[in-house]
């Protein structure tokens, strides 16, 4: 076999592709599912935390800030291992799927809270004054006037962070979640061939490239409307 043939046989073997395509597709859908759940719950929780923080109640904000800083500091894998292997010792049994979702949700929420909060702070104080002077309440002002602007200001860091954290669904491999990377490594070891990993690579691109473009699109669209 020529070098080229060896290369193609190792990374793009048609027989291996055919054999493991169903597994890779399964993994792809599990990854999609967890990714969507994490994005929705993580961003949602982050937004709620930022709103709570904006009330500036120190008894609530002190623990909130500690929570956020701790989650932003720790590698997600550490949290995943603690929850998956530690919690059963105190009688709490969570499936790998739940642990993965929960950890990534909390981590994304922590980062999103910081980003939303910075956005809230960067909205001009005159916006608050204008809204409050028409008799709108604090929460009304926050929801209808401040947050729409804050979110717009934070689209770029928010999409970057969301993508970075959602990619961590691959950590599910370590705790036996049947996501994309797990399926690919299993297939790779059975087949003794790197083709499944190439398939997973393509699948990740199919999943995330549109997200990257979606983020860019939202950004330019809002930027245009804003200025």
């Amino acid at each position, binding site marked *: 076999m020529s070098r080229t043939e060896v290369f193609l046989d190792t990374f793009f073997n048609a027989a291996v592709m055919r054999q493991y395509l169903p597994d890779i597709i399964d993994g792809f859908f599990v990854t999609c599912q967890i990714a969507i759940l994490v994005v929705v719950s993580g961003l949602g929780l982050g937004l709620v935390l930022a709103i709570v923080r904006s009330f500036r109640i120190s008894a609530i904000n002190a623990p909130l800030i500690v929570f956020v800083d701790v989650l932003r500091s720790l590698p997600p894998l550490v949290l995943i291992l603690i929850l998956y292997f530690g919690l059963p010792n105190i009688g709490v049994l969570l499936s790998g799927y739940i642990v993965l979702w929960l950890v990534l949700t909390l981590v994304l929420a922590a980062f999103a809270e910081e980003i939303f909060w910075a956005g809230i702070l960067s909205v001009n104080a005159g916006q608050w004054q204008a809204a409050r002077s028409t*008799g709108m309440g604090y929460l009304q002002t926050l929801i209808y006037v401040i947050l729409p*602007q804050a979110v717009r200001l934070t689209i770029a860091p928010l999409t970057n962070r969301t993508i970075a954290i959602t990619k961590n669904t691959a950590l599910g491999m370590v705790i036996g979640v049947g996501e994309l990377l797990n399926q690919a490594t299993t297939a790779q070891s059975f087949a003794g061939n790197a083709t499944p990993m190439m398939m997973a690579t393509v699948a990740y691109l199919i999943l995330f490239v549109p997200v990257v473009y979606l983020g860019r699109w939202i950004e330019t669209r809002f930027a245009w409307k804003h200025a």
Partner: protein
Amino acid sequence: MQDDAALLSISGLRLSYGATEVLKGLDLEARRGEMTFIIGPSGSGKSSLLRCCNRLEEPSAGRILIAGEDITKPGANLNRIRRRIGMVFQSFNLYPHMTAAGNVRLALQKVLKKSRSEADAIAMAQLDRVGLSGHAHQYPAQLSGGQQQRVAIARALALEPAIMLFDEPTSALDPELVGEVLKVMRALKDDGMTMVVVSHEMRFARSAADQVVFIAEGRIVETGPPEQIFENPQVQRTRDFVAQAEH
């Protein structure tokens, strides 16, 4: 003491930011249907005074009555009070993510709980009043400064305020756009609106104001009709300020 015609009545008003007192005991009355003009050097507390009038700022002492209602008493319903007091800002402060009509509609829907169609009708009428019915569906960024300020005026008027407060409404505008805003303000006065205006537009004050108040360092130095303040000030401090401002 209490003038029946006084729509806004301020007595002994004090305000501090931290340790610095910026309003040092002010007494002021604005009569119904009149335009009260406030002038004074930068940092004298003019904006702070207006912000106290709708409790965007918390006075440390004093009383403010609006149409006989004490808005400074504890437990006063601020949101209900505020919608009776229109406020217009130097930097317009339009909501950039909403159209002109959307800006006017928001409080109508969220505060007065009007239906979308009702709020829309009022918004169109108010935009028409400031000469902008043709721009209802444009975003602030698509409007000139003068147009933005007129939208801001329409937004305040839509709530049918008892009094309008203007904080340097033309200071951020290019000179050629000042006139259109002053024209709207004059029309409001002709409609009988009670107004308190902080502004450096002395010529406008001469022709439109009923009362001019000169403030310096958190105190009222002199109050009187425009003829007095501009032609024949009784206090040296006023004389100096007017002379320097008119140049």
